[in-house]
């Protein structure tokens, strides 16, 4: 074996040497052999270590010439896991690139564009995002799924883990979970997966703060209350609950509520508990759901309805809706009498067989849940967490934004759409006098809807997406951005009729950017808009850029409110349907999700920074200030930010 490795080392050395000697234009002919011999070495620890020792030579030799790895400062941590898991040549190139960055991090190799700290932070993030490679799951399925390249990636991660501090990785993981959890999404699967993975970190030697943060999250998902820690099986727990004295039940309720409120996560035991007290000691619900005054009042006025809601829809599988139920009551949804029949209607609605199929999972049926219960649980979540609605993996930000908007300001309409779609598998929306039925339209923005969504989105998004797409089609030849007409009719009367877009639809260049910025200031900035407040969320279009400010694509978000933060600076608070708003947009523009006065599910940016990424917005032409009063410097600053980022991909007319 050691003879073999010596042979492999020699072959790699020869290949790397040949590559070093080659002229830049000829590098590609010699790279293949470097990659092949690296594959043989990376098949064991000793070889991997040898590769690391050569890593400082990689850039100079041209290992990455002519490919996406050429400039290490352009590497993005979220892409690493994906390329390592590919079967082809990319996975070995990616591995060599990580070794190069490790060499930078450890000071074994100086790179002009990346500091050791940046390299270290990059690798920490890579590890935090790929805990499944650092701690391979020991399931049969995962085992069957491995291949040589997966084992190699796992070996690399063990190596990186040994070379880097677990503490820093744990810190990254905790902040990543914090960042996602604080936005209180309805769908918590991604957060849960990270917590599951991070449990292995607790055995490693890490900082007490990180450890307790991770322990807290783990507890929130598993056994947050005293009795649940003692009786971990749901069945034993339920049996024991019966014998519990009132004050102990209260303690359980408090423990569950505390854990839920601090993390936004709900444990299965919490669901068992709520179902139990719903019958045995319903007064404790105000504690278990963490109700405030409004919530308690709403609950007391509708005890029977809440009892039925819990009975039908709250199960260990739909436990997250407990959080939604509490928020829904606190938002005062049940104090609006006209909504009550619309909610009650869902209890016994005849659900269309196709919709039933989409809603139900095998385990739901086994545990006695009904499609109505699943749909109701989703409805509760959406009504309780309007800003927790997410688009999942679908390009359907428009539909998610609509559901979120209606949940806030058009609850009656939303409930109507839910009932229509669930019962008839069809909804209709009128566009310029013409009724569009989703069931008679082919094709939406998305070819196929990924089903990892809340159950309201599962039911509604396929219809909304098709209708939206059809409306846009009808505006294709108007020579202006169709959103101008589509948005007010698709979302409803909450959207003002004025509309401005920086992209000239005929030339696809940027036109009159200065007046676009002025108009936004004059209609939205409190210093320039004559004091008109934003009444309803404003659907705006933004350019999404990466950490280097490079344009990635177009996206839809909603401005929720514009207010001063604690430092007295005007910020734009917005809802991002991707539920992951804390991304770095480059040029120092990094939306925050907490710490600047954000409500649950909101992200925020200083006014000016947000403006620099915007390409379209609606406004009320009757409520605007004077454009010429907007300072030239503000306009120039926005224009500079725009031109240096997404603007590079456009012609400026």
């Amino acid at each position, binding site marked *: 074996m050691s003879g073999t490795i010596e042979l492999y080392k020699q072959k790699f050395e020869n290949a790397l040497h040949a590559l070093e000697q080659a002229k830049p*234009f000829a590098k590609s002919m010699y790279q293949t052999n470097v990659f092949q*011999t690296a594959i043989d070495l990376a098949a064991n620890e000793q070889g991997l270590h040898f590769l690391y020792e050569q890593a400082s030579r990689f850039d100079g030799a041209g290992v990455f010439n002519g490919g996406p790895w050429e400039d290490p400062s352009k590497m993005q941590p979220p892409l690493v896991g994906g390329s390592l898991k590919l079967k082809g040549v990319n996975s070995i190139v990616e591995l060599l690139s990580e070794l190069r960055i490790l060499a930078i991090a450890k000071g074994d190799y100086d790179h002009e564009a990346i500091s050791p700290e940046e390299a270290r932070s990059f690798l920490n993030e890579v590890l935090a995002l790929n805990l499944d490679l650092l701690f391979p799951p020991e399931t049969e399925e995962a085992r069957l799924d491995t291949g040589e390249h997966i084992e190699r990636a796992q070996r690399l991660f063990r190596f990186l883990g040994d070379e880097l501090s677990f503490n820093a990785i744990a810190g990254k993981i905790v902040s990543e979970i914090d960042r996602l959890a604080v936005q209180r999404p309805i769908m918590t699967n991604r957060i849960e997966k990270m917590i599951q993975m991070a449990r292995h970190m607790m055995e490693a030697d890490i900082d007490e703060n990180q450890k307790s943060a991770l322990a807290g999250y783990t507890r929130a998902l598993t056994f947050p209350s005293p009795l649940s820690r003692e009786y971990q099986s749901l069945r034993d727990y339920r049996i024991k609950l019966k014998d519990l004295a009132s004050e102990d039940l209260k303690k359980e309720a408090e423990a569950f509520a505390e854990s839920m409120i601090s993390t936004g996560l709900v444990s299965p035991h919490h669901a068992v508990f709520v179902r139990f007290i719903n019958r045995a000691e319903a007064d404790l619900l105000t504690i278990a759901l963490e109700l405030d005054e409004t919530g308690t009042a709403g609950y007391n006025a509708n005890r029977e309805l809440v009892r039925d809601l819990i009975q039908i829809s709250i199960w260990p599988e739909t436990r997250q809706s407990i959080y939604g139920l509490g928020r829904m009551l606190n938002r005062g949804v049940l104090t609006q009498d006209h909504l009550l029949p619309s909610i009650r209607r869902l209890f016994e609605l005849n659900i269309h067989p196709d919709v039933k199929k989409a809603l139900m999972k095998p385990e739901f049926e086994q545990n006695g849940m009904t499609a109505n219960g699943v749909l109701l649980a989703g409805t509760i979540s959406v009504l309780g967490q309007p800003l927790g609605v997410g688009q999942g993996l679908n390009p359907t930000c428009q539909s998610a934004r609509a559901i979120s908007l209606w949940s806030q300001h058009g609850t009656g309409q939303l409930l109507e759409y839910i009932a229509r779609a669930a019962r008839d598998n069809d909804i209709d929306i009128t566009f310029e006098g013409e009724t569009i039925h989703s069931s008679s339209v082919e094709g939406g923005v998305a070819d196929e809807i990924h089903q990892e969504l809340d159950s309201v989105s599962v039911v509604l998004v396929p219809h909304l997406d098709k209708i939206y797409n059809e409306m846009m089609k009808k505006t294709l030849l108007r020579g202006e951005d169709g959103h101008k007409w589509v948005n007010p009719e698709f979302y409803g009367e909450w959207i003002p009729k004025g509309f401005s877009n920086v992209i000239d639809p005929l030339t696809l260049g940027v036109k009159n950017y200065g007046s676009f910025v002025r108009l936004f200031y004059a209609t939205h900035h409190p210093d320039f808009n004559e004091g008109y407040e934003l009444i309803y969320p404003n659907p705006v279009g933004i350019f999404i850029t990466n950490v280097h400010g490079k344009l990635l694509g177009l996206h839809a978000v909603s401005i929720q409110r514009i207010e001063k933060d604690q430092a007295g600076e005007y910020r734009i608070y917005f809802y991002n349907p991707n539920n992951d708003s804390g991304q770095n947009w480059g040029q120092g523009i990094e939306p925050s999700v907490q710490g600047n006065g954000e409500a649950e599910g909101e992200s925020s940016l200083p006014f000016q920074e947000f403006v620099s990424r915007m390409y379209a917005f609606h406004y009320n032409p009757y409520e605007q200030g004077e454009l010429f009063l907007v300072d030239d410097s503000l306009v120039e600053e926005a224009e500079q930010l725009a031109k240096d980022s997404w603007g590079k991909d456009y012609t400026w007319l």
Partner: protein
Amino acid sequence: MGTNEKRIALLGWSLQAIEAADKLNKPFVVVGPPDYQEFADKNEITFVPWKFERINEKSDELYRQLDSLNVKTAVPIYEETVEWAGALNARLMNDPRIFNRSLLLRDKGLMKRKAQMAGIRVGVFEEAYSKEDVHRFLKRVNEALIKIDGDLNDPIHVKPLNKAGAVGHRMITESREIDEMEDQEFPCLMESHLDGQEFSCEAFIHDGKVQFLNITEYVQLGHSNFVPASPSLEEWRPMIKDEIEKLVDAFEIKYGVIHPEYFISADGKLHFGEVAARVPGGHIFELIEKAYGFSAFQAQILCSDPDTTEEELRAFFPEEVTSAIGYAASLMVYPKVNVIEKLNVPEKLKNDPYFEKHDMFIPVNSKVAERVGFGNHYGTIFFFGDDSERIRSLLKEYQEYDFYL
């Protein structure tokens, strides 16, 4: 590089050829598809964009461009650029016949006829313009072989008149195989089948004289070959050399490389298959470099240049056969599955002292493209060692192996 020095033009984009030219330290220019312009600019390679596949009446324009770049001779890298080199060199060297000679190499029917007229032994051949022609040829060849009803047919071969190597090559034994041919395959060349040891030669010609003759032994056509040939084939070298010289004279080849293919039949007679005047396939140039230590690409360039001196050539080429430091072989690998899931390179192979390297990866598109004729190989394994018999048995052993699962 002196600016007044005349340049070589490489016709076709090949990094190997460019690297070889660069290392020769002589000025050169590359004529290639326009897609490479950016890369060439970035790497300061003098480049003239040209679409060779478009037959147009602007070839004069290319000549004038190259002339203004002080080009003295054009070197064809790919089959498709051979007649372009002919046309350009005819102008550059003021000898219109160079173009007509190059056409002999681009029409396999013409090529065979020329060889036959020069007294070179060839099989029976004919051009086919329709499926009827192929049916008749198959029938007549087998009648000539005195086959009666019920006997198995001897196969015939059909191939395009102007494609490189094995591209579009079909072997036909039964008439139903003729029906599978498509209309655009016509016209084509039909040949009788020859049994025997197959090999190719790479002859570097300067001023009409063979400067260096390499013999490449085929273990299986289109799959595996090695350089130099085994002693049992090298025994025939004097006779092979005579044949090559006959070919050079018949085709009036003065400068460059030729790559003819031959068979030696059981009765010890040499049969001519076909000849090309470009870089051969099957990684043969790489094998020559590995075995002899000189760059065959450089050899081609030097021999294409009339100004290269005797001394330069003598200093460049080593002695044939005896100076080879070992046998260099390549095995071309074709997937035997429709979808590639896994790459399976056995440890036994990787640890074999004769194993040099391979370039197989799981392709990005794991669905295997349908093979036409011999098709394109997906990867290559290189061997190197002292014993030609061991090389041959390795090639045979691993040709059967499933590297792609």
